[in-house]
Each structure stands twice: as C-alpha cells, then as structure tokens.
C-alpha cells in the first residue's frame, strides 16, 4: 500500500470523525424540531473563536473552553426557546429559515468580533506534534488523537441516547411529540435541552477542527458539507450517521488527495444530490420518507 493511500485513509477517518459529530448534531436538531440546521457551521466556529481569543488573552484552555461552551450553548438554547418554539403551527419551512437567520446573525457576530486580518489559533497543551510511521506513511499523531477523541465523544452521546432515561425520553419526543407529551414528558423542555446538546456537539466538532487545521471562519462550510452524511445516514438514525459520516470523510480526503482539493465540494454535493435521487431515506434510516 502506498503512503498516499494510508495518509488519505487516516486523514479521512479524522475528517469523518468530525463530520460524525456535526451530523449527529444535525440529526438531533432534525429529530427534535424537524429543522435542517443551517446554523450548525457557525455554532461550530463560534466557540472555537471565543476559546482561542480567551486563550490568547491569557486564560487557561479549560477556562476558555468552558466560557466558550457556555456562551454557544446559551445562544442555541435561547434560539430554540425564543424562536423555534414560535414556529410550531407555522408552515414546515419556517423553522429551517429561522436557522438561516440565526446563521446570518452568528456570521455577522463572527465577522464583527473576529476580523479576518488576524490569525487565531487554539493551542492545546499536551497535544503531541511528532510524526509516526504507519505502513510507510508519515502521520501526525495529533490527527489520530483528535480522531479517537471525536469518536469517543460520538460514542458517548450515542450511549446516552441509547441507554439512559434521558436518551429514551429524547427519542420518544423525536418520534412523536404528542404521544410523548401524553406520557408526561415535558416536550418543550426536552426540545430546548436537545438544542443544548446540539450546541455542545457543534462545539466539540469546532474544537476538533481547530486542533487539526486552525481556527478559521471557513470551517463553517464544514457544517454544510456534512449534509450528505445526514441524508445517507437516514436523517433519524444515529448509528447510520456514524457510518455515513466516516464514509463521507474518507471520500472527501480521497478526492482531495487523488483528484484535487478544489473538487471536494463538487464531489460531496454531487453525492448529496445522488443520495436524494436514489435513496432519500438513506441507507440506515427508517423508511418513513413518503413520496409526494
């Protein structure tokens, strides 16, 4: 096996693990409020920017991450309570458009607070920066660390959703809010909580992205590049999302390493169109897509 192949595989799994975190957030947001969240990229980048700015001004990593997480989670929950809950009973597209508005606001905040002419970095102490040899390929250890950490977080969230009382309640609300509310579940509170978890997942993805390729507003595009994984995974299935996210990540790395970095967007979105055309309910999803 050639070195390029190994690098593409490992890099792809790392990219894929970040996409898994993003797509899990998108799935949760979709299950809770039936909105495609177009603000996810901004929700990724915002905490990374805040954390790096605080760190540059002298705060410790833990403190800056905590502040950043609190800020972005608070914003997301406030958005859910103040805006998305008002879109119930309105046409279905209103919630999705609200996330577009939210994205525009966050974009504006990012642009005003963190002008593009400065460099931002998130320095993670203890992150190894040496290279290792793997089947003849030289790979940065930090890439492996970030990939494993992301997958552990994803597995943790999966475990919470699958085996805890809270997770079962979240699933119930996602499947049928009305029935769940009759079972004594506080639907609104859980929806707000879901958006909190969505924000935390987005922040994790943003930090993972920042740790491997720096802090930049261009990372927000990754929030949109994860949509093929969301649809391929079947919109509602967490397991499917994990597999699909890794697949899409590997595909993107292979395209960028063998075909050219400028074709990553093209291939990813062609895949999205193809999935919508051929398997709109994804590979792992419950078959509940109805054709109009």
């Amino acid at each position, binding site marked *: 096996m050639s070195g390029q192949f190994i690098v593409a595989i490992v890099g792809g799994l790392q990219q894929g693990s970040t996409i898994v975190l993003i797509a899990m957030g998108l799935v949760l947001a979709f299950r809770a409020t039936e909105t*495609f969240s177009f603000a996810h990229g901004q929700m990724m980048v915002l905490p990374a920017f805040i954390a790096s700015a605080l760190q540059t001004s002298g705060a410790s990593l833990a403190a800056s991450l905590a502040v950043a997480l609190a800020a972005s989670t608070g914003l997301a929950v406030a958005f859910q309570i*103040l*805006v998305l809950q*008002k*879109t119930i*009973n*309105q*046409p*279905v*597209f*209103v919630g*999705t*458009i*609200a996330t*577009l*508005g*939210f*994205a*525009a*606001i*966050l*974009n*504006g*905040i*990012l*642009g*005003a607070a963190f*002008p593009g002419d400065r460099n931002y970095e998130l320095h993670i102490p203890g992150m190894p920066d040496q290279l290792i040899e793997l089947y003849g390929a030289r790979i940065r250890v930090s890439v492996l660390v970030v990939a494993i950490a992301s997958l552990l977080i994803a597995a943790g969230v999966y475990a919470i959703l699958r085996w805890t009382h809270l997770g079962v309640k979240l699933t119930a609300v996602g499947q049928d809010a009305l029935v769940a509310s009759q079972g004594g579940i506080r639907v609104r509170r859980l929806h707000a909580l879901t958006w909190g978890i969505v924000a935390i997942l987005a922040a994790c993805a943003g930090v993972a992205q920042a740790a491997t390729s720096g802090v930049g507003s261009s990372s927000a595009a990754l929030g*949109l590049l994860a*949509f093929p994984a969301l*649809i391929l995974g079947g919109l509602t299935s967490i397991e499917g999302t994990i597999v699909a996210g890794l697949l899409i990540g590997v595909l993107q790395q292979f395209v960028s390493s063998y075909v050219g970095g*400028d*074709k990553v*967007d*093209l291939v*990813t*979105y*062609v895949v*999205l*169109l193809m999935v*919508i*055309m051929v398997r*709109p309910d994804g590979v792992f999803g419950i078959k509940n*897509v*109805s*054709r*109009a």
Partner: protein
Amino acid sequence: MKGLRLRGQDGATASVFKDGALGSTTVSGRVLPAGTVLVLATAFVVTTADSNNVYLYCTALFACVGALSLGLLMGTAGQVSIGNSAFLAVGAFVGMWASRAGLPLPAALLVATVAAGLAGVLVGLPALRIQGLYLALATLAAHFIVLYFITEYQKSAVGSVGFLITPALSSGGLDQQQRYWAWIMTAVVVACLAGVAALQRGKMGRVLGFMKEHEHVSACLGIDSRRYKLLVFVLSSAAIGFQGSLMPYFSGTLSVDTFSLDLAIAYIAMIMIGGTGNIFGPVIGAFVVVIMPTLIPDVLGAFVVNDRAANLAPPLSQIAYGVLIIVMITRSSDGISGMLRYVNPQSWFISSRATKGSN
C-alpha cells in the same frame, strides 16, 4: 399582540382568502395597484434621484425579479430554495458564454433563461418527488456544483478578475443609461407581477393552494402535485436565470464572487421580510434587503469613527437581516404583508363596530 398571534396560526389559510377580501381577485385587479405604485416610484426616482440612488433603485428592481420568483415557489408550493444565487449564476454565465460565442443579445438572453430552467429541472426532479424540505438541500448542493463549474469557466476564459463588458445602453452617458435601465426593469418587474398573479390565479396556483391545505385529500382526488411543484420551480428558476442574464449588461462586470451563499440567503430574507400573502410582499422585501446595507454605514458613521465603520458595515448588515428574519418569523405570520393585513383602511373612516363583520 395575543390576538395577532392567534390570527397568525392559520396564516396559510388566511392568506388565500384575505388577499381576495382586501382587493380584487382578478389578475388585473391585483397587478394594477402594485404596477401603478411601481411606475410612479420609478418616475419619481428617475426625475429626482442622483445617479447613485438610481443605481441602487435599479439593483432593487433586479432583486424584485428573484424575490417574486422565490415568493411564488414558497407561497404556492411551500418549498424553500437556497438556489437563487446558483440560478442567477447559470443565467449570467450561460448568457455571457452565448454572447461571446457570437449570438445576438436577445438570443443570448433566451438561451440563458432556458438553461436556468433546465438546471431547475435537474435539481427539482429528484427533490420534489419527496415530501419535506429536500429541495432546500438539493438547491444547496446545486449552489456549490454550479459555483465549481462557473469558477472553472471564468478561470479558463478571462482569469480571476471576471468579465468586463460595455454595459448596454451606455451611449447616452452614465446617468441616462441608468434611467433607461430603471424603466426597463420596471417593465420586467411588472411583467413578473402579472405572471405571478396569473399563475396563482390559474389552475396551478389553485391546485398547489389546495394541496398545501389538504395534502391527503388532494392525493385522493388524483392530483399529481409533483408536476405542479416542478413546474413552479422550473418557471421560477427560468425567471431568476433571466434576471441573471441581464445583470452583467447593467453593471458591466461579471464575476464568480457575486454569487455567494449569502446572496441566496438574502433572497430568502426578502421573502420572510416582505411576505407572500400579498403580491407586493416580495417587492417590499427586496427593497428592504437591498437598501438596508447601504444605510448601515451612514447610521454607523454617526456613532463610530469612520475607519471602523467601513469594516463593521458588512457584518452588521448581516446581523440586521438575520434579526429581521427572526423578528418576522416570531412576530408576524407573513412578513410585512402579514402585518399590513391587519391594517384595515375602512376602520379609519367607519367606527370599529361597523367593520368588525367585514374583516
């Protein structure tokens, strides 16, 4: 406020009937007032405003075409498209390609319009088979796919600066040229208004309206909603493509950088701000979204030192229309035209008790 919200709950139903209740239901009855307002506004702007403001007014009129198309799609088919920017780009670049290949201007515009319509078929065909908001994702995909190809074309044809052409109608000088454009675009927008009104009034509009209200019933009646959804999407794509094909002849430049995702979202903002219940809603939205960013530096200049103001203006205008979208969503069921619906001119002259039954 409470009453407003309750009325808003059945916003879709209200919009179908209220439009009729407020004015005439015939096509000409709905287009004439809007068209008259527009023509008077153009006459006023052309005679009084300076060249900068005429340019801004023309830009807003251009945006009206895209906004009316998107409003038709969202208002009748209930679908969101993030593809305005992509279809504009298809129209602009195919038109440029055709005129560079030697086609005369009208033929180039026609080719561009048809190409944008065909792109609409390609994107709409898979996405509109399925219920839900898949069109939003498909048009998102289309945006980046189109962006890739036009970037490649621009790189191979002229390089990263973009195309520079002599604007049409430039013989009479800059001022005169922009006045001509203002009148041309007024005609185009009035034609679009008439087209939208005719489509909403025609079979397609009624079928889609019925389908939005009673999805299962319409299926039982054997209505093939996919055909109508696709038709409205293709028509709106073609209109946006026409707008795109005209744009370079107005501004004199054409570059990939114009067609960002933010532009597509700005069009959605126009619809959310203007609303779709009234035929004039998208026009109002287009004017608000186009003109607002130009006011922000002035407002800002009053508070901040000039240097910072220039940097802050673009992000602040983004925040402003993000906030406007959200305010419209939470406070009105249908943007500004939804708010206007509760303004009842009759009640200004007759006591409120007398008009209660009529509205």
